[in-house]
């Protein structure tokens, strides 16, 4: 049996890999954290044209550990050295003008639709969701879009309990 006792492990460049507080609690370690992590919301309602792919304007950051989210273009961009698998979750509440019209929430990676989920709606407010893991490289960017079957003008409701988007990196996946 071999045991190494130390409170901190760094690489040869002095970069912190793991630190214990002396009581067995690890306080940091870049390779074993679910970071980058972020969540964003909307500061106001967003009008959009029905039956048209529309980027959801999540323009307010709730938290963003590695500054990967850009509130000017509503993109999450993978920071340098942070490629890997990420878990994303989005909830988008919008109005539906007619029964049986679907609400789709889609993720675009580098401008290309990659995955979507949809729900059926009836007249009123309906919530679309999209929960998935995506494999991303550094500098890849992800955007969240909404699409409704209805052709009339629509509105995304900015209620922070109902419309939000977030994600975090999985460890070693």
């Amino acid at each position: 049996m071999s045991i190494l006792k130390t409170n901190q492990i760094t690489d040869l460049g002095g970069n912190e890999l793991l630190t214990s507080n002396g009581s067995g609690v690890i306080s940091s370690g870049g390779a074993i954290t679910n970071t980058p992590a972020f969540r964003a919301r909307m500061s106001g309602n967003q009008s959009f044209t029905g039956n048209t792919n529309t980027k959801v304007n999540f323009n307010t950051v709730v938290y963003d550990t590695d500054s990967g989210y850009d509130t000017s273009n509503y993109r999450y961009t993978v920071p340098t050295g942070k490629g890997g698998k990420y878990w994303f979750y989005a909830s988008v509440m919008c109005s539906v003008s007619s029964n049986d019209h679907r609400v789709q929430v889609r993720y675009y990676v580098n401008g290309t639709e990659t995955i979507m989920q949809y729900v059926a709606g009836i007249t009123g407010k309906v919530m679309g969701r999209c929960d998935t893991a995506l494999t991303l490289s550094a500098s890849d960017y992800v955007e969240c879009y909404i699409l409704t079957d209805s052709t009339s003008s629509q509105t995304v409701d900015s209620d922070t309990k109902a419309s939000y988007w977030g994600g975090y990196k999985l460890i070693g996946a």
Partner: protein
Amino acid sequence: MTSIIKVNTYQDANGNALFSSDGSGNVTMSANGAKNTPAFSANRANTGNTLTTNTATKVIFDTEYYDTDSAYDTSNGRFTVPSGKAGKYFFCATVAMNANFAYVRIKLRKNGTDVFRGTAIRVDTSGTSVSATIDLAVGDYVEVYVTQDSTNNVEVGDASHFHGYKLIGA
């Protein structure tokens, strides 16, 4: 330049286990803060959780699949943050019920206040879901509530689940 230290067990300076290898490269994390715990998963296995029409009703997931820190209480449907386990948690809940053409809201409540919700129009026994991360302090608790507007009270189905785990370092 490359430097390698070969060792199977890492401890901090006071002898507290951090992580170890079984000698074949399979690592077991032992330290607090290096695992996605507390983590729990539970479902509603039994009948009796009735959702009253137009009334926010707590869903009590009465059977655990796992609960690493005994933080989920199957008697009251609460996940409570244990001592020393504050941080960001990811939660996901799905509630199934048979209520044709009912408008259903599922809510994550923190300390009795709605923080996130999901909605759906129910035409069969499919689930209505919500998922999100929530910042929690020690002693904070999270519950799942559902409101449905069908003309009848309905039962929560057994395809109903509540899961959560702590994110590391987020």
